[in-house]
């Protein structure tokens, strides 16, 4: 979706300000949110792109004003409710009124480290890769109303395939409950001027990781 989260190239957000000696969490609840997300993912309640999609669907004014872990929490509530894992009134009250649904597995103190290793996103290829390193490609000018990982600034732009990362689960399908729909994944490099026009920094190159359905031969 053409949402506020797709920020690459926007102006007006100001300087990048780093915090010296930043702690892992600024408030105890932030750690709870991160750990809850890990535990629910491990349990198979939802996949990472469902989580991203739920954040992207927050109203833009909420997305911009909420802190990072607030967005995670709001997205988690949304997934819990939309996926029927708890009712909205249970979440609001902070108490379960009905029994839970069966989930795939449960994170415990014995297996918690399993949730700290990222799972593999490689999937069995359904067809040979369409592109190889060196191929010129154009990112499609597409505007799906649902989750996608093709940023707006690259759409319609001409680039070159640099790396082929194998076949991966396709976020656009996963986020809309259509399964993994495996797709080839490529690093595609764009010249700064192709993205930002003739006045752009001539020493700049930007790459995205693009799934095959995002690309067409050029």
């Amino acid at each position, binding site marked *: 979706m053409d949402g506020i989260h797709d*920020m*690459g*190239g926007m*102006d007006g*957000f*100001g*300087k*990048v*300000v*780093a*915090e010296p000696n*930043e702690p*892992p*969490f600024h*408030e105890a*609840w932030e*750690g709870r949110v991160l*750990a*809850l997300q890990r*535990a*629910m993912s491990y349990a198979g309640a939802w996949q990472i792109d469902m989580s*991203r999609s739920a954040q992207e669907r927050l109203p833009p004014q909420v997305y911009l004003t909420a802190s*990072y872990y*607030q967005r995670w*929490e709001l997205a*988690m*509530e949304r997934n*819990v409710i939309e996926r029927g894992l708890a009712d909205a009134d*249970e*979440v609001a*009250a*902070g*108490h*379960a009124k009905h*029994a*839970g649904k069966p989930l795939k597995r*449960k*994170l*415990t*103190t014995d297996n*918690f480290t399993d949730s*700290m*290793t*990222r*799972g*593999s*996103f*490689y999937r069995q290829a359904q067809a040979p890769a369409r592109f190889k390193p060196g191929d010129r490609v154009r990112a499609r000018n597409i505007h799906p109303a649902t989750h996608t990982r*093709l940023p707006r*600034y690259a759409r319609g732009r001409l680039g070159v395939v640099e790396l082929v990362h194998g076949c991966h689960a396709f976020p656009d399908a996963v986020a809309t409950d259509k399964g993994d729909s495996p797709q080839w*994944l490529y*690093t595609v*490099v764009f010249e700064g001027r192709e*993205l930002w026009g003739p006045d752009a*920094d001539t*020493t*700049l190159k930007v*790459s*995205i*990781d693009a799934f095959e359905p995002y690309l067409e031969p050029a």
Partner: protein
Amino acid sequence: MATYRHQHEHGSELSEMQLRVRALETVLMEKGYIDPAALDRIIEAYETKVGPHNGARVVARAWSNTVFKQALLDDASKAVRGMGHESRVGDHLVAVENTPQVHNMVVCTLCSCYPWEVLGLPPVWYKSAPYRSRAVKDPRGVLADFGVKLPKETQIRVWDSTAETRFLVLPMRPQGTEGWSEERLAQLVTRDCMIGTGLPKKPEEIA
């Protein structure tokens, strides 16, 4: 939960977010989906074990061992796994090498993708709108915010982490470190130089 409600009714010392997170955690626990003790352990691990010191060890080894460096550039997941890291690395880690000609910088314009296993949790600025919006368009401006100025002819390559691939920048080894041990070299490796928004420390900075 009664305790939290009690505090809430009395105008609470607890913030709205604390209450909201506790409510959600309680529901998920009562439903049988989560074990709060496992959550404690995850938080503890992120607070004490996982951090940029892991990535610094990787960089220091690449600086001192050309065979390891080539293995890292060929398949970073495999090479880092072989080091027996505290937090195990997933399948999709890619190391990108800075050279006198090319400076690499990593961003996630769409959210906050970051190589957690080698760098720990991303800092707030990495997840913020200023960094996400500007890194792909004005990386030299972003570097200036970090006090970094590169020669004007240096090529800048920005890697937008739009899929599950995670990028680790392998910075250039500082001059004047000949004969240093891996442990000593690792002290020069900052988190930011592995993201590409900084450069390694100079030997005199850690003397």
